[in-house]
């Protein structure tokens, strides 16, 4: 294989991986809300950014010779990854095309199933988000917006704004994701909050539901500690253990009601975890002073886990 073929193969591989990757492509820094700096009473919720359709995410076929992993076998079915690599650039292209065909077929099945079930992902997510915010005494109102595909809504400062901040949630993926040869409901969302009056970015965070491989990163390499850089700062929302499906047909044909219930739950939990981040600056999140023998320590919970009880004082001493 000459140098050009290797470069071309690398390009194909990069494409295969990048097409699967859920990337945070913008350059805004990750940020957490600071309740000391801002208190949120009223927020505007931009209409949630949604992907074109629900998808079933698997691992792309690994075309390196001798690396036919369990996941790529599941993905490919009859296609041998090594055969693709052995065929050089042409083989790689053929395998990539077959992979894309399999993805398209699976996504079509998911789309048909969700349509038949009358599933509205945006409505499920927004209802759960507004409900959780209201419970935390933040008044949230919808703002219909149009946005370019896969992007956040441009923010402009409005000194006369009646609300405190704008919340923009971009769901980059929802559907199902394979992990260890079974499928789980999955959601990947990114949320940005801007100060309504100044337009300043107040929060930028990301959440991932499902993808059990992310849940216990150590399982990927049992003898080494997980690298804190792996997965970055993305919040991993705990999934339901028995929400797995063995095959694509199981969630698209055999058990559509269970599939919709699992996906509904995934979206609701992601919304609740998103709300928990915003509620760090809610009027109810009073800062309390802990009492300890060696002077008081201010205790607070900047981002309580979803569903966590109200954060009482943490009485620790130094």
């Amino acid at each position: 294989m000459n140098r050009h073929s290797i470069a071309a193969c690398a390009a194909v591989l990069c494409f295969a991986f990048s097409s699967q990757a859920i990337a945070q492509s913008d350059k805004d820094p990750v940020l957490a809300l600071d309740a000391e700096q801002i208190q949120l009473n009223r927020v505007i919720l931009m209409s949630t950014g949604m992907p074109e359709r629900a998808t079933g995410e698997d691992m792309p076929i690994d075309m390196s010779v001798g690396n036919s992993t369990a996941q790529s076998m599941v993905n490919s079915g009859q296609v041998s990854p090594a055969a693709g690599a052995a065929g050089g650039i042409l083989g790689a292209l053929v395998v990539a095309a077959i992979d894309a065909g399999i993805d398209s077929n699976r996504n079509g099945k998911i789309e048909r199933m969700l349509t038949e079930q009358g599933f509205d992902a945006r409505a499920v997510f927004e209802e759960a988000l507004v409900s959780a915010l209201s419970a935390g005494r933040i008044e949230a109102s919808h703002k219909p917006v149009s946005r370019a595909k896969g992007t956040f809504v441009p923010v402009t400062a409005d000194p006369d704004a009646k609300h405190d901040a704008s919340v923009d949630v971009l769901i980059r993926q929802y559907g199902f994701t394979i992990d260890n040869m079974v499928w789980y409901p999955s959601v990947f969302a990114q949320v940005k909050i801007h100060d309504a009056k100044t337009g300043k970015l107040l929060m930028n965070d990301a959440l991932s539901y499902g993808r059990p491989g992310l849940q216990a990163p150590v399982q990927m390499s049992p003898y080494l500690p997980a690298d804190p850089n792996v997965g970055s700062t993305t919040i991993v929302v705990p999934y339901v253990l028995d929400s797995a499906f063995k095959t694509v047909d199981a969630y698209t044909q055999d058990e559509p009601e269970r599939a919709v219930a699992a996906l509904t739950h995934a979206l609701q939990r992601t919304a609740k975890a998103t709300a928990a981040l915003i509620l760090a600056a809610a009027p109810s999140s009073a800062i309390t002073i802990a009492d300890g023998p060696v002077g008081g320590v201010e205790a607070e919970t900047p981002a309580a886990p979803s569903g966590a009880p109200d954060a009482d004082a943490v009485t620790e001493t130094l």
Partner: protein
Amino acid sequence: MKQSPLKAASAATALCLVAACATPPPPPPPASLSFDGTGACTQNIEAHTAQTVTIKKRQRSGTLSIIAGPETACQVVNDAKLPYVLYKLPGSVKVSTIQAGGVFEAKRLFAAEVVTLDADLAPVRTFGPEAFLQRGGTWSVFFPSRANERYVLIRANPDLIGKAYLFTEQPDNSAGTQIGTAADAGPKTDYSYGGYVFARVFLEEAAAVGPKEQ
């Protein structure tokens, strides 16, 4: 026939590599459920134990991970000896956000609590278990830095020992917390007095100076 020293060295290197490949990796360290502090534990946090989290020039974040446990410093709190790691925040750069906590390992997770301290090592805020989230491969807190915070302390929280972090949602757990016990179903990792901890610092702007100047 005379063998060149280079060939001999190459052969030795190859042998070493083969031997290294043949050696099975050590088993993952288990959770430490007790801590007796082999070193002398102090009543106060000692500034000289601090290690600075630095950021490479033109980068916007830097991470420093350390194995906390018998090898690191310890403090006596309410008659209990608790291992800790003290991180100093970099100077001459404007810190935006801090992430700190434990790193998931196969069989253990450091039972972390995080305290921020000012320049005199007086506590500013304390983050208990309910402030922690699983973020990537870590169990950590993520918060905007305040001007008077100069150190980040990660210390063992004895209340977590004997408990486990649960990776799955617990339908019967009305509190919604992910902290349970080994008896709970699903994948989990035990809290430990020893294990990897880390502090990651995000800057407002890319670092204009390198680690030596920080």
